[in-house]
C-alpha cells in the first residue's frame, strides 16, 4: 500500500483554459501504481485535455503534475518518455513503413547508444543493439499474444491487432506509467475482449495505468478506480460499483431519461 502511494502519478489543482474557456477547473487527481484508473465522461468533458496535460502535449496554466513525488511540469513528451511515462494513441499511430517488430522496437529505441556511424556502416555495436531490441520487441509481442506478426507490416493486420501492437510498443520499455487513449476505439466485440484480457494481464504492482475510454463495458470491467469528468470537473470518483450507482453519473450518462 505504501508503495502504491509513493509511485503514483499525481495532479494537483490542474487548470487549463483555451482563449478564456475553462476546460479543466482545478482538478486533483491521483493514479496509483498497481491499479487501472479509468477517466470517463461525456464528449467535451475534458478527458482528452487532462490526458494531454499528463502526457505533456499541453501545459496547464495552473497546478502541478508529479510522478513519485518528482514534478513533471514543463517537461515535453519526449522527456516524460525518458522517465518511463508512455502512451498509446486514439488513432493507431504505427509507422506503415516499419515492420510490426520495428514499430515495437521504437518503444525502446531511445535507450539505444549506437551513434551515426553505426547508422550507416555495418558496425558490430549497431547490429548487436538492433538484435537486442528485436528480441525485446518479440518478447513484448509474445506477451500480448502476438508471436508471429513481427515481420508483417501494420497495414496487414486487423485494427484489433494494430491496437495490441501499439500497446506492445508502449510496454516494451517497461514503463512506470502507461496511458491509453481510447484503446477500444474502432475495435469489434471480440477484439475488445482480447484487449481487456491483455490489459488485465499488464496490470502489475508497479505500473500506473490510465485509461481514457468511451466503452463503458470495458471501463467497468477492467478499472479499479474511475474518475468521472463533466464540464472540466470531477463528478464522481470511486470503484466501478460506486460510480455505477452514483446519481450524478447516471444523470449525465442517461440524460433526461428519468424526466420522461
Amino acid at each position, binding site marked *: 500500500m505504501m508503495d502504491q502511494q509513493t509511485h503514483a502519478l499525481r495532479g494537483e489543482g490542474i487548470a487549463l483554459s483555451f482563449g478564456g474557456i475553462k476546460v479543466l477547473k482545478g482538478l486533483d487527481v491521483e493514479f496509483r501504481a498497481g491499479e487501472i484508473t479509468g477517466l470517463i465522461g461525456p464528449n467535451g468533458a475534458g478527458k482528452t485535455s487532462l490526458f494531454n496535460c499528463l*502526457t505533456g*502535449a499541453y501545459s496547464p496554466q495552473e497546478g502541478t503534475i508529479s510522478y513519485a513525488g518528482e514534478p513533471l511540469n514543463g517537461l*515535453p*513528451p*519526449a522527456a516524460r*518518455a*525518458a522517465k518511463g511515462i*508512455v*502512451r498509446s*494513441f486514439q488513432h493507431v*499511430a*504505427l*509507422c*506503415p*513503413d*516499419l*515492420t510490426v517488430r*520495428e*514499430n515495437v*522496437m*521504437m*518503444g525502446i*529505441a*531511445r535507450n*539505444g547508444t*549506437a551513434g*551515426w556511424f*553505426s*547508422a*550507416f*556502416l*555495418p558496425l558490430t555495436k*549497431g547490429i548487436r*543493439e*538492433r538484435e537486442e*531490441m528485436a528480441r525485446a520487441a518479440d518478447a513484448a509481442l509474445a506477451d500480448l499474444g502476438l508471436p508471429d506478426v513481427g*515481420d508483417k*507490416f501494420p497495414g496487414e493486420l486487423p485494427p484489433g491487432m494494430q491496437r495490441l501492437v501499439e500497446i506492445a*510498443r508502449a510496454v516494451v520499455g517497461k514503463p512506470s506509467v502507461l496511458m491509453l487513449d481510447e484503446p477500444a476505439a474502432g475495435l469489434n466485440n471480440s477484439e475488445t475482449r482480447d484487449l481487456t484480457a491483455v490489459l488485465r494481464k499488464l496490470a502489475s504492482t508497479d505500473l500506473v495505468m490510465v485509461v481514457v475510454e468511451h466503452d463503458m463495458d470495458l471501463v467497468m470491467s477492467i478499472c479499479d478506480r474511475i474518475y468521472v469528468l463533466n464540464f472540466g470537473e470531477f463528478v464522481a470518483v470511486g470503484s466501478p460499483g460506486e460510480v455505477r450507482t452514483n446519481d450524478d453519473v447516471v444523470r449525465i450518462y442517461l440524460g433526461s431519461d428519468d424526466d420522461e
Partner: protein
Amino acid sequence: MSEAPVSDQATHMSPDRSAMARLSGSITPGVTAGILVAVLMFMPYLLGGSWTFTLGLCFANSIGVLAVSLLVRYGGEVSIGHTFFTALGAYSVGVLDTRYGISLWASVPLALCLGVTLGLLFAWPSRNLHGIYLAVTTLALALAVPEMINNFDALTGGYEGLYVATPFIPGASMGLQRYYVALAMLVIVCFAVARLRLSRQGMALLLAKTHPAAADAFGTRRVWARISIMGISGGIGALCGATLAFSGSTVSPGGFTFWQAIFLLVGSVVSFYGLSLPRVLIGGAFVTLVPQLLSSSGAWIPVFYGLALLGMILLGHYMPRIRKAMARKSETA
C-alpha cells in the same frame, strides 16, 4: 505554421512493400544490386569512351537523386534546392584540386562535412517549416547558388569554372578512374542508405515522418528529426557534387542552375522516390541522358522533363486504381 499543410501521401506514392521486406531480411535486393554492379563493372570494356563517361555522370547524378528521394522518404519533405549541396561538393573537389592539387582522398570527406554542416545550418532556421513552405525556401536556396558561385569567382573561377584533372589513383587511366570512382561512390552511398533503414535513427525518422506525435511520445523530437534528415540529405547531395566534379571533369555554374535542381527532383519522382540501387540509377540516367539525347533540340528538354514528371505523377496516382480494378475484374471472371 499553425498546421502542416501537407499530407504525406506524396511519400507513399509507391507502397513498395517488397522493397522494404527485401531490405529487412531476405537477400533478393543484395543479389539484384550485386548483379547490377557486376554488369556495370564490365561496361567500360563493352562501351566506347564517351558512353563510359556518360555512364559515370549517370552514377553521380543518381547520388543526387538519392539525396532528394531520401528527404522525401525519411523526412516527408520535398526539396527543389539540392543544387546548393551538389554545388558545395563539386566546388570542394574543384577548388582543392585546381588550387592545391589535392585529390579526392581529402576533398570527398571535406565535401561530406560541408554538405552535412550546411544541411544542418539550413535546417535550423527552417526547422518549423513543412511541405510547401519548406519547398519554397529550398527554391530560394537554389536561386541563390548561381550568384554565389559567380560572385566568389576568385575561388570558383566564375563562369569559366574549374577543370578537375588530378587522378585519384596516380598512373591509372583517367577515363576509367572517372567511371569507377563514380560507381564506387554510388554503391557506397546506396549501401549506407540501406543500412540507415535498419538503424534506430532511420526507424525514428520514419516514425517521426508518419506520426510526429507518436515519435515525440517515444523520445524522438520533431526538430531532431528534421535537422538530422536535412544533414544527411545535404551530405549525400554534396557527395553527388563531388562525384560529378571528378567524373565530369569540369565544375561550372551551368551545372548548378535552378533548372538542374528541378531536374534532380524530376529524377527522384521518375524513380518513384526509390532508394535502391536500380531505382536511383533510373533517376540518375533520366537526369543525365535526357539532356544529352535532346541536346540538338534544346527547347524540347523542358517539355520532355515536364511531360515525364507529369506522366510519372499521374501514373503513380492511377496505377494503384487500375491495378485494383484489374484485380477485381480477374476475381469476377
